[in-house]
């Protein structure tokens, strides 16, 4: 079925299908509009046809038309709002930090509703395929809706006919009719000069006039849409590898830890926590521990070589040093390290003990004895200590053999083979507990027996003990999409301001045999529109009440 619609206006202009008002003279074309006698006209998009309106659409056109519909766009936005709400019922999976088993957590914490919530995938609503799908559809709709409207509107506004059809003028919302004496062209010129003083641009065609102001505000919504599209693209770009990271690392004082998935290493020189003193606190809080400062003295390193060679130590180059406090992260090339938490459990790292020869009273050392990966042999004067075994958390197993209960230096112990004057040639075993409590608990002197009478390994003074007082927990974040989100937000704001604080105002007039027809249109603030017209009329000697110009219709 092919129906060729006659879309030619009486002024001779060939309009495209779907045109409401003739693109040239402005005469209403749709039968429904033409019949409506003198009710104000529908001026949306200046009455031009939307790009997508076509008589026989194919598949691509149908898809295009679907997304071109503002009604569909509103449905999509409403559905997105409603489904976003679902994601706020229970905490989302990504808000949990450590060893988190979602399958167990939701059911255990919230019972059956929690289980259903998890099974429906609502525990990661905002990363689900259908939610991202909705965002993609909104983005598509934004692009297509905008494109379908802005291009015809741009064309219509850039080739406006000055002399409009009387019906077009009389059916505006602001109308003024009057008989004028004298030369119509001169009248139009005088009136135009007054409008020009109000900032209108004047176009004249004999006794017809078109005055126009602030057309740019019509582009506001489209600039706003460009901003929103940038915003959406930036959000979607976060799923690209390397665009976003949000992880946590624990670093004991003095340790250097790799940020997994990157080439960066962070060293915690020292973590400091300070609490308010009682005299700094108000009465009600006295005696409570109120933190004044959490600070991590951090150094960021970049690995320059041997990064993935398990046989070699990675070579690190310092790239940044910063004292991380709450809300003052270490920042380097988009990487941000935030203070997140801390743990005040101390950890013994190394001791520097002396070897005392009880027979002579001489002492040798101190020597360096780290809890982990100590040197296998220590030469101390006439003595040699060979490390035979070490244990992080010393204990005896069910067979009475020494063992370790964990890999953290909670109760470290060392077994040395000691050689030296007055000792057996093949060496004698000596057990050493760096911590006093373990020395007593496991009866070091009893274990060592006769050797304990001859030598002693002993730490003298706290300056010979190295330990981490605390561990800091840092939140590692990277968000390369953020600058684009900001750019999008700026565009969006500029567009909003353009569209909200300025209005596109137009005044058409024609004088036929001394009969003045004046119509004016704006997209908002009709009050201002009428006062512009009344003000200009007053300047040329015609006093009219602005309210009298109102031709009815909504949004007056």
């Amino acid at each position, binding site marked *: 079925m092919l129906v060729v619609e006659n879309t030619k206006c009486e002024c001779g202009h060939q309009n495209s299908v779907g045109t409401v008002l003739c693109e040239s003279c402005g005469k209403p074309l749709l039968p429904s509009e033409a019949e409506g006698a003198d009710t104000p006209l529908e001026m949306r998009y200046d009455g031009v046809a939307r790009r997508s309106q076509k008589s026989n659409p194919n598949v691509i056109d149908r898809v295009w038309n679907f997304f071109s519909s503002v009604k569909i766009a509103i449905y999509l936005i409403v559905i997105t709002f409603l489904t976003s709400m679902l994601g706020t019922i229970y905490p989302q999976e990504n808000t949990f930090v450590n*060893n988190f088993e979602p399958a167990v957590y939701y059911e255990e914490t919230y019972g059956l509703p929690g289980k259903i919530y998890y099974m429906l995938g609502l525990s990661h609503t905002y990363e689900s395929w259908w939610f991202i799908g909705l965002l993609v559809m909104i983005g598509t709709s934004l692009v297509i809706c905008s494109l379908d409207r802005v291009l015809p509107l741009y064309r219509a506004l850039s080739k406006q006919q000055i002399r409009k059809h009387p019906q077009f003028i009389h059916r505006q919302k602001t109308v003024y009719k009057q008989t004028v004496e004298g030369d119509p062209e001169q009248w139009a010129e005088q009136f135009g000069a007054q409008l020009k003083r109000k900032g209108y641009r004047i176009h004249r065609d004999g006794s017809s006039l078109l005055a126009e102001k602030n057309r740019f505000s019509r582009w506001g919504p489209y600039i706003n849409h460009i901003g929103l599209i940038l915003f959406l693209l930036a959000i979607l770009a976060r799923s690209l590898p390397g665009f976003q990271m949000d992880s946590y690392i624990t670093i004991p004082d003095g340790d250097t830890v790799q940020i997994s998935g990157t080439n960066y290493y962070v060293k915690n020189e020292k973590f400091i926590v300070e609490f308010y003193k009682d005299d700094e606190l108000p009465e009600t809080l006295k005696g409570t521990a109120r933190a004044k400062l959490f600070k991590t003295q951090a150094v960021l390193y970049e690995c320059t070589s041997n990064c993935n060679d398990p046989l070699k130590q990675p070579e690190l180059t310092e790239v940044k040093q910063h004292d991380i406090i709450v809300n003052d992260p270490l920042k380097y090339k988009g990487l941000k390290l935030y203070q997140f938490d801390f743990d005040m459990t101390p950890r013994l790292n190394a001791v520097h003990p002396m070897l005392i020869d009880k027979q002579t009273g001489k002492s040798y050392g101190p020597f360096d004895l780290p809890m982990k990966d100590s040197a296998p042999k220590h030469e101390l004067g006439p003595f040699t200590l060979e490390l035979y075994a070490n244990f992080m958390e010393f204990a005896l197993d069910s067979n009475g053999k020494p063992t370790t209960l964990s*890999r953290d230096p909670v109760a470290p112990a060392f077994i040395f083979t000691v050689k030296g004057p007055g000792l057996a040639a093949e060496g004698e075993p000596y057990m050493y507990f760096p911590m006093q409590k373990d020395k007593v608990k496991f009866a070091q002197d009893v274990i060592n027996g006769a050797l304990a009478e001859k030598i002693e390994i002993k730490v003298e003074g706290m300056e010979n003990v190295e330990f981490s007082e605390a561990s800091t927990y840092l939140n590692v974040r990277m968000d390369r999409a953020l600058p684009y989100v900001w750019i999008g937000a700026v565009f969006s704001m500029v567009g909003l301001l353009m569209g909200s604080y300025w209005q596109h105002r137009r005044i058409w007039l024609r004088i036929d045999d001394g009969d003045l027809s004046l119509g004016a249109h704006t997209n908002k603030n009709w009050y201002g529109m009428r006062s512009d017209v009344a003000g200009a009329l007053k300047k040329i000697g015609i006093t009219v009440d602005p309210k009298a110009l109102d031709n009815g219709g909504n949004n007056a």
Partner: protein
Amino acid sequence: MGKSRKTVQIVILAAVLIIGGYAIGSTLFASDSGGALKAGSEPPPFTLADLNGGTKALSDYQGKAVVVNFWGTFCPPCVKEMPEFERQYAKWKDQGLVILAINLSEDTLTVNNFVRQFDLNYPILRDVNRKTERSYGLRSYPTTFFIGPDGKIMEITVGGMTEQEIDDRIERLLQL
């Protein structure tokens, strides 16, 4: 103008398909690779030092049945399993079984002293600073990953196993 409009339509819809398809696709894909490892997941790659001064990578054993066992001297069930794995290794190695026992970031002396007590012929690998352990999302020890010749995890066993349980799993693994 009709022609150019068609082109614009096709270009925009194609862009939507590519960008949107990628975005939606990556959410579907992420639910596979993200989160905890489970049967069917691909095991994270690693390259670690062995006790002979060389390195072993998981990728060295592509197309083979691999048992990756995380162990520590501080974990009695892990210790108990080590000789059992040795017997299983002797039994199945001719059929292409690979056992990689990754130590849980303990120090050199501790590992050497431990290994010396046994006669272990499968490679003992050394994790450093818990890196590999973290990438495998370990929560408790021992944990053993049975990786099929297709490069996918067949089963993850948390906690100690009896020798019979190890045997059953290896048998199934080799039938894949």
